[in-house]
C-alpha cells in the first residue's frame, strides 16, 4: 500500500488499509456488509492525519474548496445506478 503524507501516521494507516481491503473484498463486494467494520481504526488514522498533517501543510482550506466543488458529483453518483 502507499505511504501517508504524514510519515508519523504510516503505521496506523497500514493497519487501517489492511482492515479495509479485507472487509471490502470479503464482505462489501459479496453484499454481506451491514456496517463499515474498520471505522474504529479509521478514527485513529484520521485523528493522526487531521491533527498534524492537514493543518500544518495548509491543506485544510484547499480541501474545503475542493469539497464545495464536488457537490454536483455527490448528487449524481450517490444515486444507485440501474441494476
Amino acid at each position, binding site marked *: 500500500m502507499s505511504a501517508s503524507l504524514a510519515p508519523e501516521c504510516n503505521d496506523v494507516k497500514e493497519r487501517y488499509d489492511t482492515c479495509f481491503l479485507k472487509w471490502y473484498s470479503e464482505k462489501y463486494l459479496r453484499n454481506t456488509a451491514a456496517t463499515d467494520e474498520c471505522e474504529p481504526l479509521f478514527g485513529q488514522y484520521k485523528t493522526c*492525519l487531521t491533527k498534524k498533517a492537514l493543518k500544518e501543510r495548509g491543506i485544510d482550506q484547499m480541501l474545503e474548496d475542493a469539497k464545495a466543488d464536488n457537490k454536483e458529483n455527490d448528487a449524481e453518483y450517490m444515486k444507485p445506478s440501474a*441494476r
Partner: protein
Amino acid sequence: MRIFASQHEFAYSWEEVSTNNWRKYCAHNDKASHVLAVDTLSRSLDATTHILRTERLITCRQSMPQWVKRIMGSDDTSYVYEVSYVDAQAKRVTMCSQNMTWSELLQVQEKVVYTPSVEAEGHTRFEQSARIIALCGGWQKIKNSIEEISLERFRQNAAKGREGFERVLEISRQVFAQQREEARQQREGVAA
C-alpha cells in the same frame, strides 16, 4: 479547454479490478513513482443504497518545464482531491478527481468509471475522461500552451497508469493463486 477520453479493457474481473484499485499506488507499481502518498480522508457506507463513498487526498510530485514553474510557482508537490463511489450491486466504480494545487490557475477534472465488460465475460471496462482548463489571466497563447502541456502530461500519466495497474492486477492474481495453492496443500497434508 482540452478534453481527454480513453477506454480500455482489463482482462480481470470487476471484483479484482475494484479491489486492486485501492492499492494501485503500492510499491509494486514503479510506473506511479510520481505519487508520493495516498491518504483516505473519509469513508461512508450508505445504509439504503449500499454505495461506498470515499474521499482521498493524493500527494504527487512531478517535474515541470521551467517556464511553467515560473508562472505557477516552483513547488513540485501538488495535491489531488478524489471522491469515489462504489455501487457493488450495480457493479460500478466512479472516481472523480480534481487538482487542488494551482487550482486558481489550472483546472484538471478527471472521471474514471469501471464496469464489467459487455464484450468479454470476466473482463472489466475502464473509461477515463478529463477536462483541462487554464484559468490564469494573460494571453490566450499562454493559456493554450499550458493546456497543451497539461494534456500531454495527462496522456503520459494515463498510459503509465494503465500499465502500472495491469502489473498490480497481475501480481495480485499470482499472490492469490499462490495462497489458494498453499491452503489446498495444507488441507491435503492434514487429510493425508
